[in-house]
């Protein structure tokens, strides 16, 4: 398993990177953590002529608070997400879920931005971004623009990014006070992608649901937000019966691809299980 040869570029700034992507055109690929791209190249499914390595652009890494916003650099690694005190305090879903991604070594290389920009419905961050109402900052030849997560994922391996765009940051807001959260991921073994996974963020007000997000991983061509399921719980005092109804609504929008992890029926049923368990866990943490 040997990758084909290519020209290697290592820009020091985002502008330089965008300039390279613009001048090199569609034969160039961005190298972030490399744990999706390099295996694809080794299998010669991907044969880019140029790799633009954005690992050494300092402005792309790290987490900062800007006003109400929490800005996560796209090249922040999964392990950095797990360890980050700001995220653990304000958006604890992200560090908790990141622990379920790949394995310790891969999490040192894999980045939140790479996970999102790849457009792979099996990746975990797209559903997490939907659950956190994230906004993507994208820089292209025309400058920066903001794209909400809800408009970012267009299809399998298809996002709102153009060939000469770079995803530079993911911006989220702190969870409402007392919000509960959960990410339940069924997988065959450590390092695997989800057979089915569900992220839930829930806040209560006077015992009824004042904020709810239910999103799904690897259960359709993109990550999915289960609006109908949310509607079942929104404003309600949650009961087991309502959780079951919400799960059914979520299952109704699942459109998973059959693979070795299971057929459509199984994955859809597992979506129901993960949704129920994630809601229950999130509620148990909400106060």
């Amino acid at each position: 398993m040997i990758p084909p040869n290519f020209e290697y570029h290592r820009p020091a700034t985002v502008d330089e990177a965008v300039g390279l992507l613009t001048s090199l055109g569609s034969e160039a690929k961005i190298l972030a953590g490399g744990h999706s791209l390099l295996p694809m190249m080794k299998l010669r499914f991907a044969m880019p002529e140029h790799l633009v390595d954005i690992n050494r652009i300092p402005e792309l890494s790290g987490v900062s608070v800007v006003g109400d916003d929490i800005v996560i650099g796209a090249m922040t690694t999964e392990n950095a997400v797990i360890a980050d005190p700001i995220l653990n305090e304000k958006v604890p879903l992200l560090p908790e879920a990141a622990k379920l991604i790949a394995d310790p070594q891969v999490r040192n290389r894999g980045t939140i931005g790479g996970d999102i920009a790849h457009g792979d419905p099996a990746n975990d961050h797209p559903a997490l971004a939907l659950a956190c109402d994230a906004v993507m900052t994208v820089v292209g030849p025309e400058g920066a623009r903001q794209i909400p997560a809800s408009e970012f994922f267009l299809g399998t391996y298809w996002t709102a990014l153009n060939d000469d765009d770079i995803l530079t940051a993911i911006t989220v807001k702190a969870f409402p006070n007392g919000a509960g959260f959960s990410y339940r991921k069924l997988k065959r073994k450590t390092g695997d992608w989800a057979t089915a996974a569900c992220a839930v963020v829930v806040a209560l007000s006077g015992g009824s649901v004042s904020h709810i997000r239910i999103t799904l991983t690897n259960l359709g061509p993109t990550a999915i937000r289960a609006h109908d399921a949310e509607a079942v719980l929104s404003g309600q005092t949650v009961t087991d019966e309502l959780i079951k109804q919400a799960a059914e609504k979520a299952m109704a929008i699942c459109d998973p691809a059959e693979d070795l992890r299971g057929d459509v029926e199984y994955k859809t049923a597992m979506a129901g299980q993960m949704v129920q368990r994630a809601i229950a866990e999130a509620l148990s943490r909400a106060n």
Partner: protein
Amino acid sequence: MAKQIVKMTLNGQQIEQLVDSRTLLVHFLREQMNLTGAHIGCETSQCGACTIDIDGESVKACTHLAVQCDGSDVKTVEGLAENGVLHPVQEAFYEEHGLQCGYCTPGMLMRSYRFLQENPNPTEDEIRTGISGNLCRCTGYQNIIKAVQSAATKLQDNETASA
């Protein structure tokens, strides 16, 4: 395709080498630097036999380009013992029978070495998770876990002794 110059610190030595853009770090180490401790098991970043340490983090060298290490501090299993003295994780793997065929061992050692700096006093479950990026076909992990526990104790004893 153009060759690239990489400069790095490799097991404490400054080196400067010419590599192809596409040269994988594990091949660079094994074939260009003759450091054959890091092994190739799966080539798709599951097995961890190629685990080394780059700038204080465990990395799978099969899914990393040599050229990306320019300016980095790289440590392989060959650099674990210092001045002929085995590192406590090496001693512990030997004493607890934490290896059989030895093929996963350099990766396991390098991961354990780094893991115990991340978490000096781990529980059994934390060890299992901490080495979950490394596959072993021989030991069933049970004695590897014992070895990591033993190494943790040794490292803490060393710390106490030097404090």
